[in-house]
């Protein structure tokens, strides 16, 4: 199973206004090529993807939030799954693309290559009621759709091959630009002020008269 094929299915299944948070590496470039959107947060570094997605999901409980995490990225902070399960945001689905490798980080294997480490089982032990492992595109399609429809916190671990598609476009966007685009998108769609929220940046300026 190729990650790109899973992402292509997912891009067609999520609501137009779904918020997508993803890890650093090829998954960000692949998702950007399939679903370029202001609602994407690309290239979250190791250990950060799922926590950021969880904070977003709790802050915006009416919006669908998906995390596109990886085995190496998630393993750096596996305890985050326990904290997310404890918080239990019903609008969050976490997809973990497990290629058993730090593919973008030099090609060495992660611990899941041994076959003894099962991230879906770990998630169940850490409090996820809905957590499955899939190995085929058909299984992924069925479980992803079920998770998106369920309305409960869910996690899908997809065992995927190494590699990506030919001629994958580069992502010419840094975190600061992504932040500004995303924040302005949330402001527009949620009617909130996020960037520079104060009308008057100091609490009081007694020498300034009102009116």
């Amino acid at each position, binding site marked *: 199973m190729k990650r790109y094929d899973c992402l292509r299915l997912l891009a067609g299944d999520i609501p137009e206004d779904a918020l997508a*948070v993803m890890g650093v590496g090829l998954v960000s470039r692949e998702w950007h090529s399939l679903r370029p959107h202001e609602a994407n*947060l690309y290239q*979250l*570094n*190791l*250990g*950060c993807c*799922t*926590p*950021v*997605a*969880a*904070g*977003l*999901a*709790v*802050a*915006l409980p009416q919006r669908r939030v998906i995390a596109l995490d990886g085995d190496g990225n998630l393993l750096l*902070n596996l*305890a*985050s799954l*326990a*904290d997310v399960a*404890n*918080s239990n945001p019903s609008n969050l689905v976490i997809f973990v693309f497990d290629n058993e490798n730090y593919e973008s980080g030099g090609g060495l294997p992660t611990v899941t290559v041994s076959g003894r480490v099962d991230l879906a089982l770990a998630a169940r032990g850490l409090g996820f009621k809905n957590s499955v492992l899939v190995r085929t595109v058909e299984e992924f399609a069925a479980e992803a759709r079920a998770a998106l429809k369920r309305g409960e916190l869910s996690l899908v671990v997809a065992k995927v091959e190494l590699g990506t598609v030919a001629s994958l476009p580069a992502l010419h966007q*840094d*975190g*600061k630009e*992504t*932040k500004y685009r*995303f*924040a302005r998108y*949330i*402001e527009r769609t*949620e009617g*909130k*002020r*996020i*960037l*520079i*929220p*104060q009308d008057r*940046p*100091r*609490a009081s300026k007694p020498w300034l008269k009102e009116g």
Partner: protein
Amino acid sequence: MKLEAAQAVIDGLKRSGINFISLMPDSDFAQVQHLVARDPEFTYFPVSNEAIGVGVCSGAWLGGKWPALVIPTSGLLVATWPLTCLCMAWGFPLLLLIPYRGDIGEGLWFMGPYKDTTEPILSDLHIPYRNVSRIDEISPAISEAQVSTQSWLRPVAILLSGETIQ
């Protein structure tokens, strides 16, 4: 921490508009944690380590919340990775509240190293900070730090010491 100091922290958070708090349990902030956990004005997201808290707060801010991260002195060391790869690299704001264990007057030997790490790490991470040692300074310091972190789009820290954590 005396209840008076804990209530001053809560007062400062509310006056600043903070409505999302991630917190790592810590003896110095136990009173604050209990007050936050049962206060419906705060969305409360407890975490198992401080690095997770930085990520959760960054996501919450992008969703329109005004977050604060309340962590032990040692937790600053744990949080350095996402403070760097998220807050520095992306320019995320974050109000950090940290009890300054290891400041002069500290009596526990194993808190001593934090005198060597806390302020240098904040400086290395380009996180402006203020030392607050009096209870009546807590609330205004939090308000001012919140104004600055939102405007500057980088974390700002309050280090609580002296009578504020006794």
